């Protein structure tokens, strides 16, 4: 039995574009707000993973605002995710372009049509399905800003979800909204019974008349109607563990933000974040973009690069424990 399973898994892996192999770890990088360094960090983490021998594909899932290619210092590729979404290309593999860095491929974002930010549900499922099957060890998704269902679903479908914040109130405001929305969306996917769905939908409205402001409020409401269900929700809440990176840190006080956010988030939302580390603000970051190079390729000694390496190693650790613990995530 066991050996049979092992070898068939092996075969699947070797089959190339095999229909069912999903060996890659999907990591989404989000955070609600634009301009906080999502794309740059995604690109640089991609380089880290590629340098440690992994096959990496970066996916620019910022539908409508794609610029991951710029962070990699390459021109806008001819093929992009839109070709796949628009069904001009049948296989997502075919829009992976070379980034110029060994082991690092790129699926450039949709540029051409306005509606791409609102792709249809079926298109989204098809896209997610094929992303999961990309031939890679690590797939990094660079998410757009905001809390649209598409963004949330890409985040929730990933094995690991990273939220980036910068030490600014606006960033925290958006990130908390993002985390809350993501959890509500997760509940909504997992729930199927009407009265409970209605509660969750209420919660998604910012000023809902049920005054649901936190996951606790939902759990309380649901638990009152159905205690077992409330317990299940509570278990989902405690297994919802997004990763956190504090970016653009300029002072020692900024560096303390991570632990404080963990505490606040835990206390208020009941969401337990997993802090990967912080990354200093450095002029070399934007200078690298300007000279169309990737920081991690150029500057190996700067504090910023060191920090990014640290974050990358932390992620690798989480990936290893995923291998052991199994890969639970939302399957759409």
């Amino acid at each position: 039995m066991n050996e049979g399973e092992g070898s068939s898994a092996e075969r699947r892996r070797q089959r190339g574009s095999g229909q069912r192999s999903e060996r890659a770890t999907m990591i989404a990088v989000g955070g609600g707000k634009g301009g906080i360094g999502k794309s740059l960090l995604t690109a640089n983490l991609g380089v880290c993973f590629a340098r440690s021998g992994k096959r990496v594909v970066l996916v620019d899932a910022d539908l409508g605002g794609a610029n991951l290619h710029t962070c990699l210092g390459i021109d806008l590729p001819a093929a992009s995710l839109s070709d796949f979404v628009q069904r001009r290309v049948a296989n997502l593999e075919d829009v992976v372009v070379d980034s110029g860095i060994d082991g690092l491929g790129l699926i450039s974002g949709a540029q051409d049509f306005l509606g791409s930010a609102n792709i249809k549900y079926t298109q989204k499922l098809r896209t997610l399905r094929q992303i999961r099957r990309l031939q890679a060890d690590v797939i990094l998704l660079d998410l757009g800003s905001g809390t649209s269902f598409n963004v949330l679903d890409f985040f929730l479908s990933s094995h690991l979800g990273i939220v980036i914040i910068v030490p600014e109130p606006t960033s925290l405001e958006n990130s908390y909204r993002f985390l809350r929305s993501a959890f509500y969306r997760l509940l909504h996917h997992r729930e199927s019974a009407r009265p409970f769905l209605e509660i969750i939908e209420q919660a998604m409205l910012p000023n809902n008349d049920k005054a649901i402001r936190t996951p606790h409020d939902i759990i309380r409401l649901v638990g009152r109607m159905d205690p077992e269900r409330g317990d299940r929700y509570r278990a989902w809440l405690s297994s919802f563990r997004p990763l956190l990176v504090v970016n653009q840190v300029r002072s020692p006080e900024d560096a303390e933000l991570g632990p404080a956010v963990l505490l606040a988030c835990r206390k208020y939302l009941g969401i337990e974040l997993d802090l990967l580390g912080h990354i200093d603000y450095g002029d070399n970051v934007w200078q690298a973009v300007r000279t169309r190079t990737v920081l991690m390729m150029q500057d190996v000694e700067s504090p910023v690069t060191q920090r990014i390496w640290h974050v990358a190693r932390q992620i690798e650790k989480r990936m290893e424990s995923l291998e052991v613990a199994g890969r639970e995530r939302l399957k759409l």
Partner: protein
Amino acid sequence: MKDFREQNYYELLEVTVHASQQEIEDSYRQARRAFASDSVATYALFSPEELVLLRRRIEEAYRVLTDAERRRLYDRELSRLDSTQWPDGETPADTKQQEQRADEQRQQQEQEPDNEDQPRLPLVESKPPPPADEVAEVDPVVTEPAEPVESEPVESEPVESEPVESEPVESESAEPESAEPKSGEPKSGEPETVVLESTKPEPVGPESVAPPAGPALPRVEKTESGPATDAPSAGEAASTRQEEQLPPLPRIDDDTPIDGELLRRVRLARGLELERIAEITKISIYYLRNLEIEDFTNLPARVYVRGYLKQLCSILELDASRIVDAYLARLDAGGGREGEG
């Protein structure tokens, strides 16, 4: 993970029940920083009222858990509560308490509309219901009326003040860092009435700690900075001294204008300095002053003003339902002494 309003002291400070003094200190310090009023981490998450409440609870947790004797009593209550199941989370409460609850809920409804029938945690253990005039019923802190626990770890206490009779002396009700509520008459016997965490099921807004409309219970004030003398320090003088030195409490009837001047007069009658209120509420003294002098152009957004007013009412023992909207109406009418302050 529970809502912080439902967490016990250990959960609040995120330490185990076996935590050492040092662990508690560290955890407390971290929480203090994270939930300071200028902390970015809480931005857009907690309302100002929730933050005040959370800070107060953390302070109380710290105070109890770092005091060996109080901690021991608290542990005992915790373990007792663990084995006690209240039907449907309902706690035994006398009618007065319930009336008051309903009253406060009415006041809170605007901001806290959903709390009407939250499941109640088994937080209260009260064999005989507490006497109606005991403040224990509204104070979301541990109340240990009987056993004399006086060993405060960090600070020295001003006075073991003479047992004050229950009269509305000063309002320290919202004081986050002190106020071990003491019942006026030292009772004997085991502490059968120990209120863990919040007695009220919905300790939400600051007014949740507003003392009952009746006589407020005097407390012994303990301050962090207070010198270990028999005399209260200057800052405390107003609150510990006799009532007759304070101006009379202004009467508020239907045609009393609810304005900044009224707030000021009530504050003076309560013997409270603006600085003291700022310290308790963490509201900037600048805004507090502007509320009183009605410098409406130099106040924050209306929603914050509402929160400030509620906190202020709680501290001044004013009926928030009466004051807050009336004051806001005045603010909306654009009266006040614009720019004069």
